[in-house]
C-alpha cells in the first residue's frame, strides 16, 4: 500500500502536473476556492461597474458603484493621507474602550445574575426589557446625558457589547454541569474554590463566544454612531471622526471610491479584531483546542 502511494506522483510527472503539485502543496483546496471566489466577485464587480460604457445604460446597483480599479487608486492615495489613518485610530480606540467596558461590566453582572436567584428575579426582567432597544436608538438620549460627545459614543458602543456578554455569561453558567460542582463539593471544595476553579473556567468558553460576537457588534455600532453623531469632537473633513464619519464625509463630499475604501477598511478591522479575540480565547481556555 505504502509503495503504491509513493509511486503514484512519479507516474504522472508532467509539467502540467508539476503546477498542480505546487498548487496542492502550497495552497490547500479551501484556500484555492476562496481565492477563485474572490477573483470572480472582483471581476463581476469590475464588469458591472463599467456596464454604463458597454451596455449603454448602467446596471442597477453594480453600475452605480465605483469600479475596483478606482477604489484601488483611491486606496493607494489614502495610504499617504494622515486623516485616513486618524480615522482608523479614532474608531479603533472607541471600539477598544467600549469593548473593554462591556467586558468589565458585563462579565461580573452576568456572573452575579447567574449565581443569585433573587437578584436574577429582580434584575433580569429589566435587562430583558432594555435589551431589544437597539444601541443606536440610545444615541440621542446618550448625547443628552453624557457630558461629551466622545463619552456618548463610547456608551452606545458599550451597550452593543454589554447585552451580548451578559447573555452569554448567564447562558454559560446555566449550562455548567451540576455534577462537576457536586463532585467538587464531595471532595471538600469551599464556595470560593468552586467559584474560582469551576464556575469561572466553566463560563470562560461562553465568555469567549460572547467576546467574538461582541467585537463584531461593537464595530457595527461604532460606525453608525459616528455617522449619526458627526464623529465626535473635533471632526473635520478628513480627520478624527473615525471610519464611520470618514464614509459619511466621503459621501457628502462626493468621493465615492473613498466610501468603498472606508467600507473595506471596516471589514478588515472587524476581521482582524475577531481573529485576535479568538486567539485570546484559545489562549485563555486551552482545553477547548482539542481535536
Amino acid at each position: 500500500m505504502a509503495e503504491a502511494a509513493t509511486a503514484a506522483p512519479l507516474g504522472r510527472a508532467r509539467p502540467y502536473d508539476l503546477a498542480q503539485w505546487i498548487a496542492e502543496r502550497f495552497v490547500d483546496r479551501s484556500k484555492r476556492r476562496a481565492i477563485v471566489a474572490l477573483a470572480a466577485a472582483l471581476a463581476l464587480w469590475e464588469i458591472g461597474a463599467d456596464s454604463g460604457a458597454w451596455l449603454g445604460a448602467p446596471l442597477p446597483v453594480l453600475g452605480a458603484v465605483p469600479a475596483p480599479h478606482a477604489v484601488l487608486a483611491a486606496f493607494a492615495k489614502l495610504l499617504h493621507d494622515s486623516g485616513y489613518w486618524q480615522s482608523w485610530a479614532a474608531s479603533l480606540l472607541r471600539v477598544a474602550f467600549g469593548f473593554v467596558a462591556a467586558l468589565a461590566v458585563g462579565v461580573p453582572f452576568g456572573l452575579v445574575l447567574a449565581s443569585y436567584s433573587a437578584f436574577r428575579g429582580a434584575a433580569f426582567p429589566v435587562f430583558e426589557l432594555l435589551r431589544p432597544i437597539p444601541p443606536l436608538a440610545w444615541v440621542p438620549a446618550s448625547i443628552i446625558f453624557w457630558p461629551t460627545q466622545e463619552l456618548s459614543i463610547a456608551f452606545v458602543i458599550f451597550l452593543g457589547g454589554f447585552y451580548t456578554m451578559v447573555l452569554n455569561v448567564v447562558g454559560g453558567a446555566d449550562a455548567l454541569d451540576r455534577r462537576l460542582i457536586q463532585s467538587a463539593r464531595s471532595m471538600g471544595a469551599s464556595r470560593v474554590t468552586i467559584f474560582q476553579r469551576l464556575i469561572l473556567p466553566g463560563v470562560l468558553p461562553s465568555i469567549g463566544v460572547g467576546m467574538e460576537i461582541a467585537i463584531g457588534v461593537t464595530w457595527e455600532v461604532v460606525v453608525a454612531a459616528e455617522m449619526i453623531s458627526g464623529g465626535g469632537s473635533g471632526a473635520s473633513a478628513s480627520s478624527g471622526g473615525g471610519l464611520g464619519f470618514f464614509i459619511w464625509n466621503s459621501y457628502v463630499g462626493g468621493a465615492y471610491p473613498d466610501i468603498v475604501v472606508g467600507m473595506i477598511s471596516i471589514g478588515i478591522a472587524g476581521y482582524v479584531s475577531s481573529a485576535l479575540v479568538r486567539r485570546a480565547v484559545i489562549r485563555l481556555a486551552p482545553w477547548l483546542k482539542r481535536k
Partner: protein
Amino acid sequence: MNVRPIHNGRGAIDIADVVKSYGSIGSDVLAVDRCSLSIPSGEICMIVGPSGCGKTTLLNAIAGFHDIDGGAITLDGRTLCGPGRPQASIGSDRIVVFQNGALFPWMNNLDNIAFGPVVQKRLTKKEAREKARLLMADAGLSGYEDNYPGELSSGLQRRVEILRALINEPAVLLLDEPYRALDALSKSIMHEALLETYYRTGVTIFFITHDLEEAIFLGHRVVVMTSRPCRPKKIFNIDIPHPRRYDVLTSQRFRELAAEISATVDEEAIKAFTLGDREG
C-alpha cells in the same frame, strides 16, 4: 467461601428504612420506600434494578447530595442523614464517580487528581501532585499527566476519575454506572483495573449497574431492586472467591448465578416496563 480481602475497617454503610419522594405535595413520586440495606466494610455491593427505579436517588442520598424524607443512613456508626441530622452532609469519606464522568475539563489529569487534597488543605499543591503522579504510575496512566481529560478515551477518563476519588482515601466509592458508555473490551479492562485497585485499598464499593455480567463478576453481593419505589427485592451472595479473573465468566457457577439473577431482574423490568417508567 465468600473471601473478603483486606479492608481498612472503615466504610460500613447502614441504610435503614430510607424514604425519599420527589415533587410537590399531592403529586409526589415515591422514589425510595422503606429501603434497608447493610453493607459491611470492604464489600463490593452491586445494585441492579430497572431503569428509573430509584437506585440513583439512593446513591445521591448516601453521597449527601440531597436529604431523605425518612429513615437514616449511617457510615461506620456515624449518622450521615436521618434523625437528629436533617441536613444531608457531603464528605470526602464517600466519593461519587458518575455515569458520564465529571472530571474538570479545564484542569489537566494530574491537577484533577490532586484537586481533593489541595482544596481540603491536607497537602500542598506540590505534595498532592506528587501523590497524584504516583497513583497514575501505579494505575499505568503515566504519560497522561499533562493531558486534558478531553484528550483521553472515556475508559481512561473513568480511571482517572477513580484515582481522583481514591487520592482522598475515602471509606466508600459510590459508582453510578461508570462504565455504561464503554465497549465490551474496554469494560473488561476497567473491571480488572477496578478489582486490582480494590485489592490494594479494600475500599467499600457501592456500584450501580444495568449489566448483570458486570454485577456478578465484580460483586460480593448483588442486590436486585424493585421498580419504583426502590427497595431490595432479593440479595444474591456471589460465592465465587476473590481475587477473580476474567475466566470466571465461563465457569459453571457463574452461569447458574446469572440465570438465577436475571430471572429476578426480568420480573422487575417487566413490571417497570408495564408501568411505563422512564429512565430517570
